[in-house]
Structures are given as C-alpha cells and as structure tokens.
C-alpha cells in the first residue's frame, strides 16, 4: 500500500481554491475556442471567464412566479459543492485531503448527485423549457451511468483496490488508459455528459432556450456556469490516478505531474464544446445500453484477466 499522508482538515480550505483555479483555466480554454470561432483576438479569449464573472456578479437575480426557490437554490449551490467533494479524494503527490478507502465509489456517488442537481435546476424555476431540459438530462443519465460504473470498476479490479492512491500506484508499468482504452473512453464521454457540456449539453442548450439556464440570472447563473467547469475540472483530476498513472513521471514532481495531466484531460473535455452536433438522449440511449455497456463489461473481463 503506497504511503499517502492525510492532510490536516484546515487544508480543506485550499481545495475549492485549487479546483477553482483549475476550472478557471478550463473555462479560459473553452472561452478561447469560442472567441476564436467568432473571430475575436486571443487576449479577449483568455479574459472571457473574468468578464463573464464580473458581469454576472453585478446582475440582479430574477425569480419567476411560483418558483420552487428552495430546491432551485439546492441545485444551483450544489454544483460547485459536489465538484469539490468529487476532487477531495484525489491524491496530490504524497498528500491527500480525504484518504477514502473507497475513493472510486465516492466519485461515482458524487456523479450520481449530479442527476439530482441538474433535474432540480430544471424543476426549480417553474418554466417549461427548464423542466423539459431537466427531464432530458435524466434520459441521458440513464444511458451513460451504467457504462460509466463498469468503466470505473475496471481500474479498481486491476488494482485490487477502490482507493485512488492504490489505483494510481498499480500503474507502475503501464497506464490503465493504454490497456483499458474502452473504459477510459467511456469515462471521458461520461464526464462530458454529467457536466452537461459539449456534445452532451442536453440540460443547457439553445434548442430549449438555454434549458435549465433559461430563467437563471445573476449569481445563480454564475454558480451553474462555474459549477459546470468545476465538475469538468474535478473529473479531469480524478482521471489522473484512475487512468493516467497518478503523479508518476520524470523530472517534475508528482504534484506537478498530477496537475499537468489533469490540465491535458481538462483541455480534451473543455474543447469538445461545439465541435459536433448534440448527441440527443433518444439516440444515445440505445448506444449506451447496446454498445457501451457490453463493451465496458468486456473491458472489465480484460482488466480482471490482466490483473490476475
């Protein structure tokens, strides 16, 4: 079992800051891509997250008639919280905030939280478009969740542990991403899907007038938009111990390697935006159940065979 020191609880204050920095980098990448497509310069592009933050924090919050404020606030505030909770089990070099012996399952539980949050974000404002978008997200969730569960199981089986530090150190010879490409692919795809981002942005898309964002303004809107980048950043961080060998790498230290790898994964996730038409849940459901699910089960068998 690899030595990982659990940090004192007060270090927890740093977790949101670190994750927010990573998410801001991700948002800047996505912003840069959008700005380039629109023909703006690179400087504008990089500052998009800042100008948008400034704009939204000054904006008033508008609440539609008969909105369910409590559930709406749970959804809006819940996104950043779940993202941080997702990330706290990731070992950063030799330290970790929460050394959970079931880190893989913990990550899975947090991504399931997003089912509730996206639906509640659609339910809260009492608007047809939002509600349809919230329901549509659950349709997508039913399609990606089971393949994702099996994709998460494969590295755990190969490492004989659910602890992320163990999974990371089990990849001394070869990254799991290399000999479990199906699991890694499904993981990336699901990360985009549970963040409702890129080709899977079913909960917040212009074909439903912004979906769950249709009625969201001001700081609420900022929390949802930032929450989405935070979830992407957390998913990118978790991918590092799970599939990319953790902090292992030459010259740079393990902390730096973890962050570098996370940034690369984050770039892949963020830059998926706008590249392809939306993958609609009604189409993806069959793909999830009839293609990805059997594929991930086979992947799991390969992982079990490779591990024993």
């Amino acid at each position, binding site marked *: 079992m690899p030595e990982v020191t659990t940090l004192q609880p007060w270090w927890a204050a740093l977790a949101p800051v670190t994750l927010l920095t990573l998410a801001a980098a991700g948002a800047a990448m996505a912003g840069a891509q*959008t700005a380039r*497509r*629109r*023909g*703006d*310069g690179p400087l*504008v592009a990089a500052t*998009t997250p800042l*100008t*948008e933050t400034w*704009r939204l924090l*000054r*904006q*008033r*919050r*508008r*609440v*539609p*008639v*008969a*909105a*369910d*404020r*409590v*559930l709406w606030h749970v959804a809006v505030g819940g996104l950043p919280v779940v993202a941080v909770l997702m990330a706290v089990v990731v070992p950063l070099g030799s330290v970790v905030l929460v050394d959970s012996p079931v880190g893989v399952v913990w990550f899975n539980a947090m991504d399931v939280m997003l089912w509730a949050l996206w639906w509640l974000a659609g*339910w*809260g404002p*009492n*608007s*047809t*478009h939002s*509600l*349809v978008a919230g*329901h*549509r997200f659950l349709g997508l969730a039913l399609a990606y969740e089971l393949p994702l569960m099996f994709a998460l199981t494969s590295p755990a089986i190969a490492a004989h542990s659910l602890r992320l530090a163990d999974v990371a150190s089990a990849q001394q010879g070869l990254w799991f991403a290399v000999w479990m490409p199906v699991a890694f692919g499904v993981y990336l795809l699901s990360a985009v899907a549970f963040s409702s981002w890129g*080709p899977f*942005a079913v909960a917040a*898309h*212009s*074909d*439903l*007038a*912004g979906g769950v*964002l*249709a*009625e*969201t*303004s*001001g700081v609420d*809107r900022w929390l949802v938009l930032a929450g989405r980048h935070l979830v992407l950043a957390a998913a990118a961080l978790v991918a590092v111990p799970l599939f990319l060998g953790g902090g292992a790498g030459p010259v740079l230290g393990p902390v730096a390697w973890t962050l570098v790898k996370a940034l690369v994964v984050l770039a892949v996730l963020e830059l998926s*935006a*706008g*590249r*392809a*038409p*939306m*993958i*609609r849940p*009604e*189409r993806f459901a069959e793909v999830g159940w009839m293609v990805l699910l059997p594929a991930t089960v086979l992947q799991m068998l390969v992982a079990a065979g490779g591990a024993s």
Partner: protein
Amino acid sequence: MGVTGVRRGIHVLVVAARGGALVRLSVERALRTLGWVPASSPADADLLAVCGTPADQERDAIEQIWRQLPGPRARVEVTSTEALGELLSQAASALEDHELQATLAQEADASAPMGMDHEDMDHAGMDHGDMDHGDMDHGDMDHGDMDHGDMSMTGPGGIALAGSSDDDRDGLEMDVGHVILGAGLPGWPAGLVLRATLHGDVVTGVEVLASPAPPSLSDPAVRAALLVDAAAGVLDLAGWSAAADSARRARDDLMDAAGATRIAAADVARLTRRVRRSVLLRWSLEGPGHRAPSSPAPGSVVRRRLIALLEAAATTLADPQGPAHVPLGDDLALLPELAEGQELASLRLLVASMALDAGVAADA
C-alpha cells in the same frame, strides 16, 4: 477589433419584429465586431435589441420580454442600419448609468411578481415564465384556503395547470400543456408566433398564431446571406456551434458587400461539404437511417433542408441573375403534421429549417 471605451462581453437578446430580419443581420454583425454575445433567453441578457418596427401586438410581447431582463438592463430599437454603432454604444453606457439602473430596478420590483397577469395566456410572444406545471412555491404563498380536493384548473400564482387528454401517447392523464413560442427564442424567425400543445415534452399540436412577412429582396448577396443565416440557426440548434459560427462569418462577409462575396462563396461551398459529410449530424438528426417508411422522419427533413439552404445560397452567389432557387415552398402549413409526436426541441429545429426569415415563400 474592439471599439475603445465600450465594454466587451455584453449579452444581447436580439428580437426581430415582423419584417425585421434584415436589420437583425446588421445588428448581429455589429455585435460580433463589438465582442458582444447573443443571449439565449431574457434571463441571460443585459441588452434587449429590437430589430424593425413592432406592431402593437408584438409590442406587448416585447414589453413582457423586457420585464424578464434581470438588470442592469438597457434596450434599443433598431429600425435602420444607420447610426447603429452609436445606438449600441449609448445602450452600453446606459448599462453603466447607476441612477438609471436604480430607477429601472425600482420599476421592476414594483411590477413583479404578483402584479403580473399570468392568467392571460394568449399574449403573442415568448414566455419563459409562466408555464404548465402548477405550483412550486411553498415558502411565501398562502394556500391555506386550498384543500387538495379542489380540482380547479388554476394553480397558485394564477398559472394555468396542465390539462388532461385521453389520447396521450404515454397514457398519462395530467400532462397536457400549452406553450406560446415566439420572439425571444434563439434563432426564431421574425414575426412567427406558434401555440404548441405539449404532452410532457412531446408536441401533439401546433397552431400558427402569426406568420412572418417575408422580405422582398433584389440583392443576391443579401438573399444568400439570409439563406446562410437560416442554416446557421439550424446548426446552432443542432448543437454544432463551430459550423454555425463559420456560417455566420460567411453571412457577415456577404453583408459587407464589395469584394468579399467571392471569398464568402468559397466559404459557403466548404461549409456545405462539411455539413453534407458529417456522419454525426446525420445520426443526430435522423438516427441510424433505416426507418420504416410508414412514418415521416422530421429529422431527415431538417437535414435535407439545411443542405438545400446552403446549396441555394451557393447557387444564388454563382448566378446572381438567376431565379432564387429555393426548393422549400410554402412550408408553414406542413409544420403541424411534421411536428406532431416530436419533442419540443425537434419542433425548434423544424421551424428553423424552414428559413422563414429568408423570404422563401415570396420567391417560390
């Protein structure tokens, strides 16, 4: 590219009044040079830009949209392309005018939320606020007098509840709602107002309350620009914003006139190839393709029209003297049949693919 002194990143809800499609194109082009962003709903917008001159009925809808802007907010009415830059920079400074914004905020607080008349469902125009599922507000609304045996059709907040229907596809009894779709939705044609009957998110009926006035166009470049703009709208709703942005760049080049037409024509041709070849677009819109012939496939109608729009634009540019060959005809009458049994989002795609702003009916 930016204009010094004007803030970037302002989100603008562009609403085109009946016949205001051409003005909308100029406004959207101006937004792009300013580095401003089109808003997806009133809640997202700082600035409301009304294009063209709205009729009385449209004014009501626009007022309703204006009330939904959270603030700081400003509005401009653009009737011609002259002095557009000045109008927009005035609007931008209105957003920074604290006194003005304080007054507007007081106005908003005075009129919201109980004073709004939400029982009146037949105002033309988009409404994000007052929809079909009844009550959700438990905190600050007194419903002591409403025992649950009360089957009245009006819920708290004066909102009409979903009705019921026997012929529902999923056999559920409680989820028939009506939504007015109109100005304020992203990529919505100027002047069109629809009333959609929804079973959950499935469209079971569409009624056209107001149809657009197609512009009569002589300039082939402008005609092509409108066609490409319509294609951009479809691509955007389909989620392929990279392709939509290329289309919009070509559209803006076409509107620039003088010299850029040839470059734009090449861009349009390239985009057409890209759209036609995209396997993912075909799959997303049509499914795997082997559909039983008994039922119509609205997704393939959308894709066919999208390609036809781009091809028509290319033809118009290649042969400016020729007739505007747009193979879409009088489509609005077909909409209810195509949309029935589809999802709300698919209805949006169908409407966008009809390219009503491009004046298809006038040329056909």
